[in-house]
């Protein structure tokens, strides 16, 4: 399986490249939109919510702290949401190819991961740029970022692919997930701080894997603290479990899959 993917490495790279190219092919600003879109979104949240929440951001006096906090959370969330949403419809969207050409199916999620990573990298660079621009010093904890991104990606892929396989047979899954993801976003402390929640709700939040990831991003980017190892290991284990499940599910269903696509 891995060997087949290795043979197709050039295809995967060119598919990622095509994916990015087509997205902005006919727009004037091209790849700049990759950064502009999430930045604009963060700017909206910052504008609306900073007045309300900035005062409650303890420990940091900078008035821009909230913006960094928001961007750090968005960094984790946007990677997660993009990969989950694209994996959900990955087989349905590529049904044409799956019905006509034999190629390692493994390429599809890899292409999605690759193009999501590139998007995320742009946003990361922009975030770090803003961080430095407003007069902060880089910290050693930034070195945690590749690990955090990898775990977030793995979790999103695992969850997305399990649901993606189910979605081939029950198309309602994708529809439901659109709503679920929105709810999930608000259940994760991206725009607010977990500490504003009352005690029991705060305890429950620890069960949310994305809480672990989002806070880890915030800790390393904003506060300069190392993330909670315990939380990370938990999410990593969950991701491995989900990835294993998705692989098993895909293997078992692949004979039926093309029939119903």
């Amino acid at each position, binding site marked *: 399986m891995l060997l087949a993917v290795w*043979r197709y490495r050039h295809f995967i790279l060119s598919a990622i490249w*095509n994916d990015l*190219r*087509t997205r902005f*092919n006919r727009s004037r600003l091209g790849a700049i939109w990759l950064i502009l879109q999430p930045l604009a979104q963060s700017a909206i949240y910052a504008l609306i919510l900073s007045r309300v929440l900035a005062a409650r951001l303890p420990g940091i006096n900078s008035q821009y702290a909230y913006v960094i906090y928001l961007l750090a959370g968005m960094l984790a969330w946007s990677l997660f949401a993009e990969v989950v949403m694209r994996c959900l419809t990955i087989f349905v969207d590529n049904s044409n190819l799956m019905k006509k050409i034999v190629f390692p199916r493994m390429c599809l999620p890899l292409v999605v991961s690759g193009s999501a990573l590139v998007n995320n990298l742009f946003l990361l660079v922009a975030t770090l740029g803003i961080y430095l621009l407003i007069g902060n010093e880089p910290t050693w904890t930034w070195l945690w970022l590749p690990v955090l991104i990898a775990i977030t990606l793995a979790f999103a892929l695992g969850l997305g692919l399990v649901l993606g396989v*189910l979605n081939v047979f029950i198309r309602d899954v994708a529809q439901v997930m659109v709503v679920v993801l929105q709810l999930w976003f608000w259940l994760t402390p991206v725009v607010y701080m977990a500490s504003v929640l009352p005690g029991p709700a705060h305890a429950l939040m620890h069960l949310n894997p994305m809480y672990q990831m989002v806070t880890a991003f915030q800790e390393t980017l904003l506060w300069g603290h190392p993330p909670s190892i315990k939380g990370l290991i938990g999410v990593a284990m969950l991701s491995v479990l989900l990835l294993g499940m998705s692989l098993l599910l895909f293997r*078992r*269903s692949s004979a039926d899959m093309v029939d119903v696509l």
Partner: protein
Amino acid sequence: MSAPVLKIEKLGKAFREYGMEWQRMLSWFGFTQAPASEHWVLRHVNFEVRAGEAVGIVGQNGAGKSTLLKLVTGTLRPTEGSVRVAGRIAAILELGMGFNPDLTGRQNVRYSAGLMGMSAAQIEQAMPCIEEFAEIGDYFDQPIRTYSSGMQMRVAFSVVTAIRPEVLIVDEALSVGDAYFSHKSMARIREFREQGTTLLIVSHDSTAIQALCDRAILLDSGSLLKDGPPEEVMDYYNALIAAKENASVQVTRHDSGRAQTISGSGEAVVESIGLFNSVDQPVEFVNVGEQVRLRVRVGVREPIARLVFGYMIKDRLGQPVFGTNTFHTRQTVEKVEAGQIIEYIIAFPMNIGPGSYSISTALVSSDTHLVDNYEWRDLALMFTVANADRDYFVGIAWVPPAIEVHCKERCVQ
């Protein structure tokens, strides 16, 4: 005999519907669930194809041809039985798949070729050939959305056939595109064949099958009905279409060793048929251009509202050379009584090239044999055309030439 490139054993494919999708999901994990409905598209199919063979697959719509091709390509998984292929398969199933309209021809070629498993180096190496074969000039570096469908087809065909595959699967794609390119692509397919590629062709075009294939397979409602020389299978297939009108199909071995197919409901039959020369002697060998008469005696067994007689001269590959019927010549016979004998005398010059030919006859009620087919008789008569007194020529038609040679400069004639 070389080893089989493709071996299909007890192949079957069923599409299953479940009342609830979770029942299907349980079935993946070994909990057997009875599906709500099970539809076998293909079952008990066995055949082998050897290296370098060209096999045509024919059958009516829904006979399972496309499913068979998809199983061979590997996009569909068999429900039972197995498909074994030795070597690389390329499939021209539906051209232009996976093309992204916003990318240029070159970028799309890179993508599709990668999808087919070619490495970056192979693609770069093949790129000039692909560009040259497609012959679309500067459009190659323009977005695909600006292409005509013919141009897309050209690029797609060029990519799929960039590297000679061990097995090439062609599904109805031969007739697509302009005449020039379709000739060019046929030439490439032939070239592959000569180099040892095995061909698997699905087509409704019997001429294409007979011209390209040395074997044909007839599928009917999911099972393999006939496997043999293309001419024989195509005759049987034609008879089968006609036989849908509850008539019989009968295949006998002709004296020449070829199979003769007779079908029809039998209200009228050809009792005798003969070819006669200008002095009314029956002939089997005819000179090119000789005036001959075809005499056919038809016996009527049951009353018929209208009788049309048709005949067709076919070459040794079974391809039509000439054919017409009395519907087109406005000579139908109305209200025929049982017991009547009708004689048809057809005079024509034998303006066809040297070779062996056969005549098929049809007794029908309109211009096709699909409405009422009283009798359809393949290989009703065989004859040979020889070139006794004309200058040497090749081809199946005798088109008498008058060649004038004018020397403008001094030359020796």
